[in-house]
């Protein structure tokens, strides 16, 4: 799949969920394979080196991990989109309904501008101030109580709770942003997602309200006036409306209610016979209030909410990208991608065949000590330097029931020819057997095995051959004894015995 490089919140959210599950599944991948794979991908994405989120996105689109399906992340993002659309539709419906309610006109009592402003404009200004306070850096801790308090009626929070219900028991989805309460990485992204949803609701609420106003203005005969029990005279009300009209008073002065309009459109419920506009204004002229209402809703409702929606969208993007680069395992992954791969291990997988003796038949008896208990007088061969220790070794051999008749030197620095001559001379005489003393710590080379085979061939199949293991100044180590027995087992020789000599002091 080709990396498109899109960094929308939806794409980042997909990557965030996918990366979390991918890194979890990747734990089972062989370390070396993982290093090689990630470095190869890192080299491909070298141009994105300073943009970790893009690198990680690129990695996700290239990596192939067993038991991991990138499509799993799409369910979470689908829910994000569905909740967004639902909130937009809900906002549109609520805005339309509320505006229709506030602007309902039976033909008797005119629509009170005071109500319309109180219901559709002032709360939006108030909520905008709250949003700005909550969006301030560091406000998170300061206004946590306010946030929790508003949580129950907050459209974004409601969407979050709804998402939690829908995703319960499923693989990580949107909940990833909220379930890790301890995570300072995820929390900001989660907060901005809630804010984004709320602003989406608010924008569509204003669109709904404006559409309702436009529809009613166009297709019905609305009469606006104003009335209040408050001790508010016409001049004060005029000042208040001028203050409210400040954003567009230069751009569209006709939409700023004039003092004449205010004076003429005030009414009191105690007036008998309904409301009659004061001359010189006609009933039609009272409809001139609508541009003010339209621009007030646009200026204090729609436009600020479009800005807050954009800010929320951008902040959500930033924090999702930040979270992507900081979730557990991402730093290690980036290090693997961006650091030179240093390997020192074997280049092949066909590491080392079985140990020697692997071809020995397991049913072969391990060469053991002699069991007949009969004392044996025989020549003794000192293999590879043990000849020099013959004075010290003789009593140890006698302890095993072997009486050395004479000592011969073989192996070590002697030539093969000398060894062959020795074997021939040993086998010429009829002996009860031959003992060979070896240094137990030196493993049996094929060189020694050749010597034993030569001895067996020339001395006959039933001649007892005793290999006496000598450990020098120490007892023969079990490990060394096993090495010898294991090697000699491969000769399949029932008259070959292995004895262990006591250490020489």
């Amino acid at each position, binding site marked *: 799949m080709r990396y498109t490089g899109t960094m929308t919140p939806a794409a980042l959210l997909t990557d965030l969920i996918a990366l979390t599950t991918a890194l979890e599944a990747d734990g089972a991948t062989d370390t070396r394979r993982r290093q090689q794979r990630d470095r190869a991908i890192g*080299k491909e994405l070298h141009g994105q080196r300073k943009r970790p989120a893009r690198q990680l996105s690129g990695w996700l689109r290239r990596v192939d991990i067993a038991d991991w399906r990138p499509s799993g992340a799409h369910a979470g993002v689908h829910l994000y989109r569905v909740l967004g659309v639902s909130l937009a539709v809900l906002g549109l419906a609520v805005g339309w309904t509320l505006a229709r309610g506030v602007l309902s006109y039976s033909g008797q009592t005119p629509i009170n501008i005071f109500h319309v402003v109180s219901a559709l404009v002032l709360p939006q200004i108030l909520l905008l101030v709250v949003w700005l306070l909550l969006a301030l850096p560091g406000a998170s801790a300061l206004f946590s109580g306010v946030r929790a308090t508003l949580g129950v009626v907050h459209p974004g929070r409601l969407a979050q709770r709804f998402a939690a219900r829908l995703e319960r028991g499923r693989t990580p989805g949107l909940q990833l942003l909220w379930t890790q309460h301890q995570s300072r990485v995820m929390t900001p992204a989660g907060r901005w997602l809630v804010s984004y949803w709320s602003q989406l609701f608010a924008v569509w609420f204003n669109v709904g309200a404006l559409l309702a106003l436009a529809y009613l203005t166009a297709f019905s005969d609305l009469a606006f006036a104003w009335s209040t029990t408050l001790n508010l005279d016409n001049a004060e009300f005029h000042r208040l409306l001028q203050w409210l009209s400040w954003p567009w008073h230069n751009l569209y002065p006709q939409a700023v209610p004039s003092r004449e309009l205010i004076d003429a459109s005030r009414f009191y419920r105690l007036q008998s016979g309904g409301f009659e506009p004061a001359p010189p204004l006609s009933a039609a002229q009272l409809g001139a209030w609508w541009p003010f209402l339209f621009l007030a809703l646009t200026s204090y409702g729609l436009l600020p909410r479009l800005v807050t929606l954009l800010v929320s969208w951008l902040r959500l993007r930033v924090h999702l990208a930040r979270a992507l680069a900081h979730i557990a395992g991402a*730093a290690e992954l980036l290090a693997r991608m961006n650091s030179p791969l240093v390997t*020192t*291990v*074997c280049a092949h997988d066909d590491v*080392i065949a079985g140990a020697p003796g692997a071809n020995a038949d397991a049913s072969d008896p391990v060469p053991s000590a002699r069991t007949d208990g009969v004392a044996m007088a025989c020549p003794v061969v000192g293999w590879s330097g043990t000849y020099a220790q013959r004075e010290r070794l003789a009593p140890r051999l006698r302890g095993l029931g072997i009486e050395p008749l004479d000592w011969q030197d073989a192996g070590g620095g002697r*030539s093969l020819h000398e060894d062959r001559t020795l074997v021939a001379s040993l086998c010429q005489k009829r002996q009860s057997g031959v003992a060979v003393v070896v240094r137990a710590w030196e*493993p049996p*080379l094929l060189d020694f095995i050749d010597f034993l085979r030569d001895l067996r061939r020339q001395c006959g199949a039933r001649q007892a051959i005793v290999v006496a293991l000598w450990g020098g100044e120490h007892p023969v180590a079990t490990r060394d004894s096993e090495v010898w027995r294991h090697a000699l087992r491969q000769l399949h020789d029932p008259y070959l015995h292995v004895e262990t000599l006591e250490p020489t002091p």
Partner: protein
Amino acid sequence: MSTPRFAVVGHPNKGKSSIVSTLANDEQVMISALSGTTREVQEYPLMVDDETLYVLIDTPGFQRPRAALEWMHAQAGSSAERPQVVRRFVEQHQGDARFEAECRLLAPLIGGAGILYVVDGSRPFGHEYEAEMEILRWTGQPSLALINMIGSGDYRHEWENALGQYFRIVRVFNAMKADFDKRLQLLLAFAQLCEAWRAPLERAVQVLRAERQRRRTGAVRLIAECLAGMITYFRESPLDSSKSIDRQRAALGEAYRAALTRREQACRQAVESLYDYNRLQRREAVVDILDEDLFSSLSWRLFGLTRRQLVATGGVGGAAAGSVIDVAVGGHSLLLGSGLGALIGGASAWFSADRIADIQLLGKSLGGQVLRIGPMRNINFPYVVLGRALLHLRMLEGRTHACREPLELVSAADSLRTAGHRQRAGVEKVFAALRKQGAGDPALLDRLGHAIEPLLDGGDEPEA
């Protein structure tokens, strides 16, 4: 420039594979007490991405050195011909089972590889080594002898005398215990064998040092993440009023301890993997502090809000409703409407909360009491966890891949003793910030990592 290649050769069972395992950081190299475990030639290149800086070659041991030397003696005319004779030996005995081991181990040498001859310095020298050393001398390749101290005996002087006659450089090297610097020194010793090898080997040393630092930084980061997670970890569970609270508390405590142990073990494994240990066996006791009585608390929740937040919400709602009255009377009520509304709203929320909490939605109660265990309050807890992690890391760094014994993690309490006062204070500050802010802040983790790393190398000032 040709890539330096070194063949590790010698008698069987003298630790050639251990040397390779240690130098290549490869725990997959088969090491066995059985003689002749290595039967194939295996190459272990040091590669930086696609560039090879040197190649280490593991070879089987000599099996019939006297017979091979005898053949060579029969062929050689003069000393100058000896390398050619060795080459001829390999060429003529390819496929000959009798000299299979000799052909395999000599092949890299006639291909230009340097010789790394390995003997066991804990056992006495024997004349049977002379034939193989003579063959190696005949190859004419640059050579270095390593006295590998496998056992408890010490015959290094005996060996030095013997090896000195055949090899220009003789070094003592314990494949099981050689620390990182000793391994680098060995590489630099190789560089002395041939001028052409100096540059790549010096670069290899630089690369290995950088890689070592990278791994250490990565390991410290893993430890910091684990530590932060363990310090701030808590576990919650809705309280089931039909069951014994003590039993529920015990079950939650057990789950809490198990989760902390799992986190710690996962960290160990990740650190080991970073150091190329994937098969390491480890023996370690559970953190003893976890056996203490754990702090637990009960709290009340509805819609995720605490009772206090819920009352505040009710209060705000009531105040909003009451403010309508205040507005209606032109403010003459002196905000009495808002105040009364807030009181009524808050009180309603307080008294109706339990009834609402019991309401079932989709089979789940909307609210109720929540039992919570953790975070761990014992102030020694982070130090114990950190001490254990540092001990583990130090042991890993001091260990070689040739060592196949289980890693025994004991006496972790001492592992922070070398820390100086300033370092301890630095660590404590981060612990305090973690307890306050929670884990997961990358900047805080960086701070913790920076505070931990110097502890690996000892303290800044001795404590009285």
